[in-house]
């Protein structure tokens, strides 16, 4: 009898211990005796979501009206740059408790000089920026001298499906930590014009101002997104919120940890979304994907054998629905990494391995040389560096550069890419002469080093 009792108690222990793990945090389908609740999961996860408050100064540019220039003289600046102090609020997620790493949005900490991280239990820490990526709106912070921090478990956003339950955790309007629930409304949302690189998870969990940088988690409490933006004509939530997928975030964060910056990989294709009409006209058996219209010569795509007319439908097994989704996916993976692309060519699917090249795209020229301020430079197809845009009356315009100029060399040494240009200018001190090709003619433009 005793043995039976012992068995019974063993059974009881087993069943009691197994139940919670089998139905952790299921909101609507719980046991009849149990209130459906997310509380047990949230108790573990919410300490990893922090409030971020920032102070800083932001440059406010004011154009001086032409009429006033008469009073200030011809040499007065065209723009008045003033610094205004600002304060901001946002949220963040601790992804590494030992090292104190906190992920948030770039727009939360942009221009901040002081960053204060407040944990759920009220402890406050100063934090510094490890690195940011403006184009995807991701920033990585490090808590100084943090102890007893709680980190969040990283989930795989690639396994997410439309209809999955999700929970948003953040600090809307500075009210204090707030948890809202909803479902995944859509995946791979791009082309919204919120960020340059978009591949958002869309959710109807209420996200508001101040939620930025906060966590989107599954019912298992795994981080699958960083809440970033909403669509709201009147500024408030209307059930359309966007989060950066955790896979993309993690790719960028690994680069920020390693290099302090994102060293974006470049594929070297141009194109657009595959539409039904194009698919029909070209006899392509799919309706969604990234249609390649041009392959940059010498790029990784060209080396791997990608051709114009190809349709890229997957990256490492993940479906691609649009060209911007491809852009966001490739743009979050560091250079030097290899990808397996699913490509449709001549109606047949094939798989092509590509090793991403280093980024060599348009940059503001100020970072290369102060005298080039106001110019945006872009790589051409190996023939030099093109002045893509030029601000009127900027230092770059004053030294004689024009839009469309191609910088072919520095002090008679040929440069074919932005990185070569940067290296050539860094090597030189004193007078630098740029070999410029303008239309059919060539000319020299001289830069004088400020120091």
């Amino acid at each position, binding site marked *: *009898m005793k043995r039976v009792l012992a068995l019974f108690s063993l059974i009881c222990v087993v069943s009691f211990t197994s139940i919670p793990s*089998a139905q952790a945090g299921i909101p*609507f389908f719980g046991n009849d005796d149990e209130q459906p609740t997310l509380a047990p999961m949230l108790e573990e996860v919410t300490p990893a979501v922090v409030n971020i408050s920032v102070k800083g100064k932001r440059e406010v540019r004011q154009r001086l009206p032409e009429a006033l220039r008469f009073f200030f003289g011809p040499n007065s600046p065209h723009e008045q740059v003033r610094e205004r102090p600002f304060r901001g609020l946002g949220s963040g997620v601790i992804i590494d408790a030992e090292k104190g790493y906190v992920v948030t949005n770039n727009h939360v900490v942009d221009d901040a000089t002081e960053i204060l991280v407040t944990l759920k239990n009220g402890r406050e820490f100063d934090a510094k920026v490890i690195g940011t990526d403006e184009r995807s709106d991701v920033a990585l912070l490090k808590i100084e001298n943090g102890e007893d921090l709680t980190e969040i478990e990283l989930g795989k956003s690639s396994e997410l499906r*439309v*209809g999955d339950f999700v929970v948003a955790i953040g600090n809307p309007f500075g009210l204090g930590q707030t948890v809202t629930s909803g479902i995944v409304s859509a995946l791979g949302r791009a082309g919204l014009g919120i960020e340059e690189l978009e591949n958002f998870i*869309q959710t109807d969990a209420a996200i508001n101002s101040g939620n930025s940088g906060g966590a989107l988690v*599954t019912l298992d409490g795994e981080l699958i997104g960083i809440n970033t933006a909403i669509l709201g004509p009147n500024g408030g939530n*209307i059930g359309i919120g966007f989060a950066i997928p955790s896979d993309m975030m993690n790719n960028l964060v690994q680069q920020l940890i390693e290099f302090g910056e994102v060293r974006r990989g470049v594929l070297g294709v141009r194109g657009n979304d595959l539409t*039904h009409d194009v698919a029909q006209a070209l006899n392509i058996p799919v309706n969604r994907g990234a249609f390649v219209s041009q392959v940059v010569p010498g790029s990784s795509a060209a080396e791997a054998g990608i051709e114009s007319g190809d349709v890229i439908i997957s990256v490492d097994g993940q479906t691609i629905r649009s060209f911007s989704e491809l852009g966001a996916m490739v743009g979050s993976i560091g250079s030097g990494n290899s990808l397996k692309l699913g490509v449709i060519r001549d109606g047949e699917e094939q798989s092509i391995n590509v090793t991403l090249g280093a980024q060599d795209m348009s940059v503001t020229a100020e970072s290369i040389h102060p005298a080039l301020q106001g110019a945006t430079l872009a790589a051409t197809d190996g023939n030099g560096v093109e002045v893509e845009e030029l601000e009127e009356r900027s230092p770059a315009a004053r030294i004689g550069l024009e839009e469309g100029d191609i910088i072919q060399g520095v002090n008679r040494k040929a440069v074919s890419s932005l990185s070569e240009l940067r290296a050539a200018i860094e090597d030189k001190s004193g007078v630098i002469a740029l070999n410029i090709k303008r239309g059919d003619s060539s000319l020299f433009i001289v830069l004088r080093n400020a120091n």
Partner: protein
Amino acid sequence: MQQLSSTLRFLLQSVGLGLVVAAIVIIAKPFWAQSESLRQNSNEITSFNQAVRKAAPAVVNIYSMGEIQGSYYQPQSSRVWRLGSGVIMDSQGYILTAHHVVDNVDKIEVALQDGRRYAAQLIGSDRYTDLAVLKIDAENLPVIPVQSTRRVRVGDIVLAIGNPYNIGQTITQGIVSASGGRVGVSNSYSDLIQMDAVINQGASGGALVNSAGELIGINNARYNSAFGDGGEGIYFAVPYENARKVMKTLIQEGKVVRGYIGISVNPNFSEEQSLSGILITGVERNSPAAKAGLQPNDFLVAIGGDPVRSAPEGLDLVAGSEPGTKLEVEFYRNEKRMTTTVTVAELPR
């Protein structure tokens, strides 16, 4: 007694053995089947992906083009695209959508989720229930699963599927907040499902499905109070049963004939005053109501012999009457109970 105790022992032993086996199975199960079964199990209950996969392909984006009347500030009229959603109801290409999506337009385009686009023909529309039926000529169409026998109950989980602001197909989730007896947008039709799943501009005409992915309603609109401000979390859908009937009539006859007497009413009156009846706020000139002698400020208490407790109830009664029907109307004027007979006309388009 001896017999009983040995039976008991046998029973306990076998139960004990069974439990031991069960315990071993339970303890060992995670080691051999952990990832597979648990994962699947938890996916099933933490996601509506199954429902989405069944229903979402049959929900289409609708782009309609029509003229917008010029205003004082912008005298020229302009042609604009309007946005909406619709639901493919059968393989012949009949699509249910909202009347206001295709009202006064001359060109309608339907975009499927797989990228196909078709010009659509307007089969008919019913302003009263805010429903319209379109048809496209296409093959291999995804068709929405429909609600089998399940009743829609308050508290049921629902998913709204549509294309808000043309950002692409969007699924939102909520519960049924109330069913029936609600005043909708048209300030007339009352038999609506009220829910808290968000629908935004462009999602009108889309599908409301249950957690099995079966159609239970056509999404209609958000609540607007008398002051014109929208309430967050209050949205409406036309129940599937009603939508199906309207669709059938529209396909067969091209229109749904609705009764009309030509009064406007204060929809909130009865609630505020806790009186049973309808306060007439206006009577259209030459309308059946005017011919019968009804006036503003008359207080209706019965139509056609049935007492009316609220404006939607009364309007449903009128709308459901065949044109030509004579309805006896009881009302109070200056605290005197009076009676008149109104001949129902057809609701002008």
